[in-house]
């Protein structure tokens, strides 16, 4: 048995003679090609995602500028509706889902399972290349007759049937393409994790991000098709004047809501479970401690997958749901706090007593824990029917949601960029700019969204361009926060652009990490490893050996007695 150490990754033997997969361009051009390399596809997802992040951010800027004053003065009311619809759709379907699944999933999963690529490289490239046309379709819909869709990212009928048809149909087409991309990606992740593992690598030895992506992909495969079918029916209602969801023609709008939320509640987990996985990779490395409670982490991910599929109607407590349904969905939703809480305490226990390096990646990861637990608490509150009815369709929901997806997932995306940038490029990011970016983002984010809880509790409705003047002050605070968030992208952009050329050379493993993607060169060779893939059975084996307790084999005495007792 030969053993590897991080200095052993210099090329041994012949590098691959030509790039595999036929005629593939080299250099930066391959990022614009139909490349089959999972690392190229991952970075394609990442860069494309950031493009849409800045687009969606500009749209958010329009929203916050409009809301800085109580009257509708910055844009017309119709434009405001288009902007908020595009903001939601772009941020969810073109930024968070593709980046947190497609970008990091494609880059990392083959490393983690010890494979040279995903199970279906061609399908993988197809899945990515569905995204730019879908995004383009959404952007062009703004310029067509009647403008873009105005019915929000939920596209509830009858609103979506009565607003200008062309924009809504283009919106549906775009979301169908993105849904298809997501399903192809999900199939690929499931097949890669279950079927492509290196011989000798057991499921319970996989890095946690694999489990997160397995759970996420199960949700994608089970729920995204339901959204696709529903949107096809909705497009019939718009184009062919059928009456599936049109009450005037005998249809039923609540059926749309059920089908929509059957996808869109799990969609929250599709956006946040991968972030759980990423943060579980980042925390142990920068705290120099094993991930606490690996087994419970796995079971809580799978618990969230199962529970996540049976809680959708908590979005519909004001839609005439019968009492038994309210009871069931309240209880089921509240139960999700249990596996989520387990993960929260596991992360805290991972940090506890660690040699924490408070670098940019760690700052964003720790801020994720803080933001996410706050968003989680308001989530449990929203699951309670009486409270939900009080704040339904108010800014409280907006605040809760943004604490989950921005405070949760986007913070993890930034953390992950700081963490894996050395692997992507071979160069380090600037720490000072990184911490400055973190500070601006953290303050701006909380300034923007924390006041919205208060606004919602006091009854400010969401999705309207005008509001009661008594809400003006806190809206202005919120808009200042949004401005800070916008400014915070400057140090980030400068950092990633300049560091690509001027950054300190990172070396293969700057974090002294043990997960497999670090046990090769930075950036990695085309087929990930020159020679054999390493067999990593303890991806979290940090810290001195005597301090480690193997939880799988430990008895109660080991856990509670300790050596000193």
């Amino acid at each position: 048995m030969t053993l590897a150490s991080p200095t052993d990754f210099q090329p041994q033997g012949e590098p691959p003679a030509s790039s595999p997969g036929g005629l593939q361009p080299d250099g930066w051009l391959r990022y614009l090609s139909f490349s089959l390399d999972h690392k190229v596809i991952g970075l394609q997802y990442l860069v494309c995602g950031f493009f849409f992040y800045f687009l969606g951010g500009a749209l958010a800027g329009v929203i916050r500028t409009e809301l800085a004053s109580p009257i509708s003065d910055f844009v017309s009311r119709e434009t405001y509706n288009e902007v908020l619809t595009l903001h939601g759709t772009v941020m969810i379907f073109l930024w968070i889902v593709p980046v947190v699944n497609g970008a990091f999933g494609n880059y990392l999963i083959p490393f983690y399972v010890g494979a040279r690529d995903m199970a279906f490289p061609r399908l993988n490239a197809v899945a990515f290349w569905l995204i730019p046309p879908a995004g383009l379709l959404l952007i062009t819909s703004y310029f067509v007759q009647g403008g873009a869709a105005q019915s929000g990212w939920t596209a509830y009928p009858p609103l979506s049937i009565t607003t200008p048809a062309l924009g809504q149909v283009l919106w549906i087409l775009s979301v169908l393409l993105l849904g298809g991309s997501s399903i192809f990606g999900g199939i690929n992740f499931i097949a890669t994790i279950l079927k492509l593992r290196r011989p000798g690598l057991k499921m319970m030895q996989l890095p946690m991000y694999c489990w997160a992506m397995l759970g996420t992909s199960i949700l994608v495969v089970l729920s995204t098709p339901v959204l696709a079918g529903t949107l096809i029916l909705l497009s019939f209602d718009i184009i062919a004047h059928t009456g599936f969801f049109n009450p005037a023609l005998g249809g039923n709008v609540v059926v749309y809501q059920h089908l929509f939320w059957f996808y869109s509640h799990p969609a929250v987990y599709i956006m946040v479970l991968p972030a759980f996985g990423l943060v579980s990779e980042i925390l142990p490395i920068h705290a120099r401690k094993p991930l606490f409670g690996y087994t419970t982490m796995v079971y809580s991910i799978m618990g969230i997958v199962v529970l996540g599929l049976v809680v959708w109607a908590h979005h519909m407590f004001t839609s005439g749901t019968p009492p038994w349904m309210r009871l069931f969905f309240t209880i089921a939703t509240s139960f999700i706090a249990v596996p989520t809480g387990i993960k929260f305490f596991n992360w805290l226990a991972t940090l506890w007593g660690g040699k924490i390096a408070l670098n940019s990646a760690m700052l964003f990861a720790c801020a994720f824990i803080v933001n996410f637990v706050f968003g989680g608490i308001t989530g449990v509150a929203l699951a309670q029917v009486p409270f939900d009815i009080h704040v339904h369709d108010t800014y409280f929901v907006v605040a809760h949601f943004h604490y989950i997806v921005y405070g949760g997932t986007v913070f993890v995306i930034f953390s992950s960029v700081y963490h894996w940038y050395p692997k992507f490029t071979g160069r380090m990011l600037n720490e000072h700019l990184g911490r400055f970016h973190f500070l601006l983002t953290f303050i701006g984010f909380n300034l923007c969204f924390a006041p919205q809880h208060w606004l919602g509790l006091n009854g400010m409705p969401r999705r309207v361009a005008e509001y009661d003047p008594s809400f003006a002050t806190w809206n202005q605070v919120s808009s200042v926060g949004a401005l800070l968030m916008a400014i915070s992208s400057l140090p980030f952009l400068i950092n990633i652009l300049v560091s690509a050329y001027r950054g300190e050379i990172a070396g293969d493993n700057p974090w002294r990490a043990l997960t497999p993607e670090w046990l090769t060169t930075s950036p990695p060779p085309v087929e990930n490893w020159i020679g054999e893939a390493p067999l990593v059975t303890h991806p979290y084996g940090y810290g001195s050996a005597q301090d480690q307790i193997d939880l799988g084999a430990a008895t109660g005495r080991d856990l509670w007695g300790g050596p000193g007792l």
Partner: protein
Amino acid sequence: MTSLAPGNSDTETRDVVSTAAVAHAGHDHGGEHADARLFGLATFLVADGMTFAGFFAAYLTFRAVNPLPPGSNYELELVLPAINTMLLLVSSYTFHRAGRGLLRGDGPACRLWLLLTAALGAAFLAGQMVEYFHLPFGLTDNLFASTFYALTGFHGLHVTLGVICILIVWWQCRSGGRVAASTPFGLEAAELYWHFVDGIWVILFGILYLL
């Protein structure tokens, strides 16, 4: 056994990274795993099945809570759909025979069974067309009519795609073609898909015509 020590004592630990001398698990980059392909198709069929499940759920809810306007409670003609159901069930059997023929190395028999399967599928589609032309309602007449056409139409699309796939596999099964006893993936994939489409029809027939 030595341990991995990335330059610092705080990471000294047990056998962390070992490049075990396991036979190379490699596959050609760009080529796709033979065993993962059928698994991938099955996963896709789960997704496809969920689309149908969404449609079925919508249809059943509509039936339960949305009364149709008076005079629009149709008795669907049962004979033709029942014959169609038989055609599809028989075609699942003929496809199975085609697969056994291929594995036996009996190419001509395999291709004959495949042609028969495609013909049964085409006959099903023809029957569906005949039914469409004789129905007393159109797509937008009422909720039941719309749902009926959406469900049967979506399924018909699947059957059409299936027939095309069978004909492609029939072509690939010629001697020297891509599909052979040693490389049966194309046929196995088409067969799995075809059984899935038949299964969906049985459920659809049950809730649309019999319920």
